[in-house]
């Protein structure tokens, strides 16, 4: 009886003490995945996950458990596997990095990462409840994928072109794009094409394409890039139909924007075209004369050097072997031969073991 009473009391005490100590808070993560379907061997990808706490009154320990059988080594965390969720911070950023080995096989890879929390202080009585979340991992390794999305575009005001002597310098239209690389290789638009109409959009006035190489964006990155297009239109307002070409025969985005062209010198900070904006014929009118003059200067000098070198070689060979059996080559004859406009060419046969083969035809 007494023993039973002791156990009862102990049991009651036990039950009373087995109160749950609840964190009394919510816990969440966003997004709850590491997901990429366009990886390729050797590529890298980072997923940022925000850990959310609704009532961060205490420090919490956080622990990651990576459960990705067959590809554990691909996954890493910028905070390591154990880190602190400080009190007072309702949001903590976590970056999960994925590095696909160069020899990774193509295919799908699935797994999960568990994030679990626990109190940092001494555990209270009874059962303590801790919250966590599962991060689903789904990776697809594929061959090369070239793709990007145009998130936003912007067309800046331009100044009209001008003429210097015979050279027509066009105005420079700057077309900015916010691009997101959704493929797994560096990507950039194939070309940017403009059709410029009058302000009503009815009459086509000119077409143009970008003159610069558009910067490539790394896989999975989002970046602002610029394209420069020439215009010979005068001051005024126009409508531009743009085409961001993904590849030669496909478009990433088409649309319409308005363009304002102002008189030269109007726009602060405007950078007009230089030599690179000239048309090919105009460029040639500058390049060809320079090239021609250069050749005219350089060619005789080179020719003279070659002749000197040849003469030196001949004199050296004559002094080393004054006669050859049966050939009766004299120095005077050698001089004559060197002056011949078409000296016999000397070809070395691939199968020869030595000695030169003389092309008798040219004699």
């Amino acid at each position: 009886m007494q023993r039973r009473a002791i156990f009862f009391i102990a049991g009651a005490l036990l039950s009373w003490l087995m109160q749950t100590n609840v964190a009394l808070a919510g816990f969440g993560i966003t997004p709850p995945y590491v997901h990429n379907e366009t990886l390729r061997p050797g590529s890298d990808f980072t997923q940022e996950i925000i850990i959310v706490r609704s009532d961060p009154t205490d420090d919490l320990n956080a622990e990651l458990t990576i459960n990705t059988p067959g590809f554990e080594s691909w996954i890493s965390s910028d905070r390591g596997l154990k880190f602190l969720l400080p009190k007072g911070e309702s949001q903590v950023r976590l970056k999960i990095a994925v590095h696909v080995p160069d020899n990774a096989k193509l295919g799908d890879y699935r797994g999960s990462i568990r994030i679990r929390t626990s109190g940092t202080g001494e555990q209270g009585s009874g059962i303590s409840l801790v919250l966590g979340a599962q991060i689903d991992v789904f990776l697809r390794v594929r061959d090369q994928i070239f793709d990007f999305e145009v998130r936003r575009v912007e067309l800046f005001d331009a100044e009209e072109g001008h003429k210097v002597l015979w050279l027509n310098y066009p105005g420079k239209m700057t077309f900015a794009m916010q691009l997101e690389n959704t493929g797994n290789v560096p990507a950039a638009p194939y070309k940017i094409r403009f059709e410029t109409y009058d302000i009503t959009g009815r009459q086509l006035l000119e077409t143009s394409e970008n003159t610069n190489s558009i910067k490539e964006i790394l896989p999975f990155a989002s970046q602002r890039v610029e394209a420069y297009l020439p215009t010979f239109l005068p001051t005024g307002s126009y409508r531009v139909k743009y085409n961001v070409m993904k590849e030669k025969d496909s478009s990433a985005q088409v649309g319409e924007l308005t363009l304002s062209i102002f008189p030269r010198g109007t726009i602060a900070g405007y950078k007009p075209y230089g030599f690179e904006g000239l048309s090919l014929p105009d460029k040639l009118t500058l390049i060809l004369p320079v090239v021609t003059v250069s050749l005219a200067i350089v060619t005789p000098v080179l020719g003279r050097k070659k002749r000197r070198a040849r003469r030196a070689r001949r004199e050296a060979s004559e002094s080393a072997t004054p006669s050859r059996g049966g050939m009766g080559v004299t120095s005077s004859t050698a001089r004559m031969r060197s002056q011949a406009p078409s000296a016999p060419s000397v070809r070395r046969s691939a199968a020869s073991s030595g000695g030169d083969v003389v092309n008798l035809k040219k004699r």
Partner: protein
Amino acid sequence: MQSSCSCMVYNIVNKLHTMDGKFTYWKTAGKITVATGIFALVTLIGVSTIGVFSTQALAGGSGAATSTVKVLNTPPRFNAAPREVVVSATTTPTVNGSVVVWSADAYDSSSNNIYLLICKTGGAPTATTSAQPSCAGGISNQLAVTSGTPPAPIYPATAIVYATSSPIIDNVNETIQWYAFVCDDVVGLPKCSKTTDPLVQGTPGAPEASPLVINHPHTFSSLTNDGPKDPGQLITFTASSTEVTHQDTINGPDLATLFLCKAADFTGTNCGSGGTWASSTSAVQTNPVASWTFPIPTLDGTTTTYPYIVDSRGAQAIGPQQGTASTFTVNNVAPTIVPGTISLVDQYASTSMKLVVEKGETPNFKLSFQVSDYNSCTTAAGTPQASSTIITLYRSGYPDASCNGLSDGQQNYNSCYSSGDKTASWNVVCAPDPTYMSDSCTGPSDMTVGWSCTFPLWYTTDPTDFGSPWASEQMKVNITPMDHAGATSSNLKLTGSEMNILSALGLTANTFSFGGWEPGQGNTTIGVDDQGATSSLLAIEATGNASLDANISGTDMCTTPGSCSGSPTDTIPASAEHYATSTIAYASGVSLASTTPKFFDFNILKSTSTSTPNTGTLYWGITVPATITVSGDYKGQNAIDAVINSSATW
């Protein structure tokens, strides 16, 4: 003298006889006849000569007769041809109703006053003593006469004399012949130049000579236009105009050109410094038109133009509409959104948008875009053209018509947000944002301006990313800008942005009790204590925007948690705890796993109410092993991990 003459005659006759032997005819009778004739002739000659000398002698000589005559007043005369001061010719006609001035360089040998008189006919005019002369036929035949004090140059000097007409109106003829006369006003005997003077009509063939060429201007009676029109559209003005009095035909018909000036400053050939709206591209005989396309942008409202018509020979039209203000109207058109300029991001400027407040609103989502208005980004008063904007936000698979902002009751905080819904609360702030795309409104010639709307989103917002039932969708917006006149347009646009899943759960109950048990005893029914009361339950809320399952695990319990000995006398294994979503038999409940979490198909559906999240209840039960011999405070730790529900039912 007479004897000498006889001898001469005889010598002559004798010579005739002797010189010509053939003249045997000359006998005595013939000689006498001839001599007589010659004598008579000589006598006649002699008498005449004497007579002349006698007369002269009478005159100069003492004793001759004197006679006199007085020449009366002679008229003035032209020193140079009379002329129109302003040439009136076929290429430079005189506008009907104009005043014409003639001039003439003339003199008067008596230095009298000189009047210039211009008449319509060549009949002899009438000079008047001490007054102006008049034309033959009277005043109706007169075009002009010198007025005031006429010049009186002292002979032989000349003077330019002028004659100015009254407005010459001839609604019938295109040419008017004129005849010029110079007259004096001598008392008693005034004179005018002759009608036969070769210069009476000026220098023949000269443009300043007669006739006057009359140009009959158009009468401009009214102006209409086919407006109102939108910016970018063509507006055409038609003038009601014709040569009412007479249709000129010299050098072809008079063709009219319509000018629409911005100010009342027509110069006669073009609009002045105020500028030109438009002018006729080709001159026509009647009712000229002018048109232009309203540029984009053009401020809406009513504007004034000052119309003028001028014909092909430079005559401005007459009539009530010439130079009188006329109005035209540019329509107000609705503002729109510039494609490709929409940006929807979260507070981290990411298009992969995240909710970070459990059971609450995540603030500072931002929707930015460019508003374009063909009427300009500003009004004539300088206020913003686009005055407000209604936006809706929803996932792209949700019906457009169910979230278009056109009616109340659409907003549900899950699949649709609408700032136009008056029955729902959504704290959206929309305003022009000149920092967006660096697009501020620079003035009437600028048609775009950046706008941004910031707003919160509830934790119940449907996700569109990987793992959700709506993973194939994206966020979509309907932006309805409204201008100052209330014109609106609906602009449905995919944003390319995704709403991420917030996988979150929360606990509402902080305690649950297992009840009091002796070793070897425990709950026979999960969640029911030994008194039969419901206990040991745990309510779990879905505090994000996901449907949840759970991974559940726990640790063994002992009095020294974290360092349990594992002995059956003082360690209650985790597996002694069972749980279920209802009060079922303990044995049917799920045994709590230790270390490795066990998946539990909880199916807590995604919360849809902003105030009451969906919950799942876990009931617990325990059996204290009979092997326990140590009483005390047994502690352990149970972990509940949120797992995204893979079911299609959310």
